[in-house]
């Protein structure tokens, strides 16, 4: 294998693959990327067995072939070279790849292609096209709820595609984020539901284009943007019945400036306990009183004007969960719908844009 390519033409691809290759040292080969040179183009693959990415692009190929090599090292080498330089890659035998650019020369240890895991091949026959920029915005609004903690059973977001709409839902057991978007002409016969891993969502956020093409088989979800394809193993397990926990008729509605509430929560949370981050809301006519106390540090209170005519209510929250939502929502004002101090609270932007956004939060007993 031998090929020549400009630094700028390969750097971005290698960088994207950094997010994919395995960082923990469970299987050494997974730290490698697979480079294949065919007559017309170069194809590079990375995978951690859960999420894989394949990208292809033109290069001047002198000799076809394939090899696997440390994804991190190749990226670091290419990045370190002078901008605009032509880089030559050459398989020199004895499991070595020679990388040269001008006077710089690197000989890097390789492993044969045979050891590299097979990645499922997508067919993309369904021709499902999703709006990428909108999908990225939706992902932003559910992403922060997904935790990697062992305690929580979900490390991904549920994606629902049906005729007319695209939805994402995520939950960690204490809160739930739901977004939906109207999408026309997707040609969906049967509703599609799949849990997309956090890693895949995080990679999708890095892509740029109008559309992302989607497909799936029994075990995998496929996303294609231009020359790049992500293969994501579907997370097994049943996503909880989220429709049932979204409160429909909470009687007390509060409307408040997003900025003012966020600032006040941030201030008061300074003296909440590290572990639980709990703060208390005291709702009265047209105002929210906020409290926190920590026996080891002290206590704080603050007050925010709001539109509120509901019951007087004292209710506790994890301040971080409030800040997560207030940081993700862009509207000027937010609505908070409550029932009582033990029941789920619904939060949403006062004015909806084309992406519907709902955040459900369980209170905290303080």
């Amino acid at each position, binding site marked *: 294998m031998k090929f020549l390519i400009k630094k700028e033409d390969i750097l971005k691809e290698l960088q994207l693959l950094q997010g994919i290759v395995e960082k923990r040292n469970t299987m050494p080969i997974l730290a490698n990327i697979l480079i294949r040179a065919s007559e017309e183009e170069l194809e590079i693959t990375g995978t951690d067995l859960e999420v894989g990415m394949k990208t292809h692009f033109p290069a001047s190929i002198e000799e076809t072939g394939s090899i696997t090599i440390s994804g991190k090292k190749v990226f670091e080498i290419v990045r370190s070279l002078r901008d605009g330089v032509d880089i030559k890659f050459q398989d020199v035998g004895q499991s070595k790849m020679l990388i040269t650019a001008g006077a710089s020369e690197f000989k890097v240890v390789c492993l044969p292609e045979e050891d590299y895991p097979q990645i499922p091949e997508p067919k993309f026959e369904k021709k499902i096209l999703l709006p990428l920029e909108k999908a990225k915005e939706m992902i932003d609004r559910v992403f922060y709820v997904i935790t990697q903690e*062992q305690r929580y059973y979900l490390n991904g977001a549920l994606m629902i595609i049906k005729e007319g709409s695209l939805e994402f839902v995520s939950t960690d057991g204490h809160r739930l984020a739901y977004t939906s978007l109207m999408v026309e002409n997707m040609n969906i016969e049967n509703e599609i539901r799949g849990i997309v891993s956090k890693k895949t969502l995080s990679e999708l956020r890095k892509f740029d284009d109008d559309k992302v093409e989607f497909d799936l088989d029994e075990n995998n979800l496929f996303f294609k943007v231009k020359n790049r394809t992500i293969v994501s193993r579907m997370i097994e397990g049943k996503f909880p019945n989220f429709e049932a926990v979204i409160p429909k008729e909470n009687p007390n509605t509060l409307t408040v400036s997003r900025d003012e509430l966020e600032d006040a929560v941030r201030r008061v949370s300074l003296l909440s306990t590290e*572990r639980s981050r709990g703060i208390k809301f005291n709702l009265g006519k047209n105002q929210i009183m906020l409290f926190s106390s920590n026996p080891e540090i002290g206590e704080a209170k603050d007050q925010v004007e709001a539109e509120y005519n509901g019951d007087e209510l004292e209710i506790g929250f994890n301040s971080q969960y409030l800040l997560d939502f207030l940081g993700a929502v862009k509207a000027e004002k937010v609505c908070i719908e409550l029932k009582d101090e*033990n029941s789920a609270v619904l939060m949403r932007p006062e004015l909806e844009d084309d992406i519907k956004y709902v955040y459900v939060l*369980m209170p905290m007993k303080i």
Partner: protein
Amino acid sequence: MKRRYIVHIDIDAFFAAVEELLDPSLKGKPVIVGGLPQERGVASTASYEARKYGVHSGMSLRKAYQLCPMGIFIRGNYQIYQAFSEKFFRILSSYTPDVEQASLDEAYLDLTRCRPLYASFSKIVRQIKHRVEKELGLMVSAGVGSNKLLAKLATNKAKPGGLFEVKQGEEIEFLKTLSIESLPGIGLKTQAILRMLNVHKIGDLWGFPRSSLRSLFGLDGEEIYLQSRGIDSRPVATPSVPKSISRETTFLEDIWDQRLLLAHLAYLCDRVALSLRKGSFFAHIIEVKVRYADFRTETRRRLLIMPLQEMGEIYMVARELFLQLASSSRLSLRLIGVRASDLTRTRALSLFEPYSERKERLGIAMDQVREKYGFGALLTAREKMLESIYTFDKERGFVLKTASLTK
């Protein structure tokens, strides 16, 4: 720095004294608590009569028997000692918030902050001592000094049953004639070296410059230099938030019957839940521990989305974990335990598990009944199964063997 007023208070021959209280016929006899003479293990307490024969705590039971063959050897009821200890600390805490629990029967009190409350410290110390003795029925010794070291040395002098105060200005006189091994920093080896140097009394140490002690004993030398002059800046450490609460028990005989094992588990969950409520804690992690007949120990834990405090809920989790463990082995068990950890004082509710305040209120109501009529007044039918094995005490519930005292 302001002169501190530190009290050290210590129950005399604690375990043995409790045994004498429970069985007055033991009075005046050499009592040794810790096990029977032929058993492995060490004496945890010896009564003053037994000490006359040279028996002391930490000595192997066999050795103790050799020295004192007519001694009365008792295995011990740790749950009862624990109950006495709790009462002891409850009394002490009513005088000052600055109480350090040095062990089950030993405490340091810092009265400095309470100056405005008490006209005379000496009088209040006599009162504390008197009240503990009257309410527990046990003799205590107390020492007073301007730091923990002096207070403890004063208690040693006051033993048994006395009260001694090292007054301001009298420290040097007090320390001078004490034997060097009374300092906590001087172990057997150090002692031997010092005795070779003809140092026997604390006063003899004063002739050594700091640097000599340091070159002889390293950092310990520094410590000895300061201690010999009665200098000790350690604060009285008030209890911090516990990391976990656990209860476990070793069975009198290995148990195979799963229903009986679950009865033990339920009872231990009840005790854990009680401690959680007392400290107003909720646990994010429930862990079950079993030890098989072949001494192999296994644990299994669950991380919870909604932290728990209620006995019933904790038992349901513990039961499931126990059944997972039990399904992997056919051996009988010699120990079972349950631990609640990752404790918080707030409860984050879960979206997918129903929550009702009723169970929380039930726990509080149970506590109120038990406060009034004793722990044994309310038990589940499952816990009642233990009646066939253990002595039942209305005040304290079942008297299990070596109930865990760890917090």
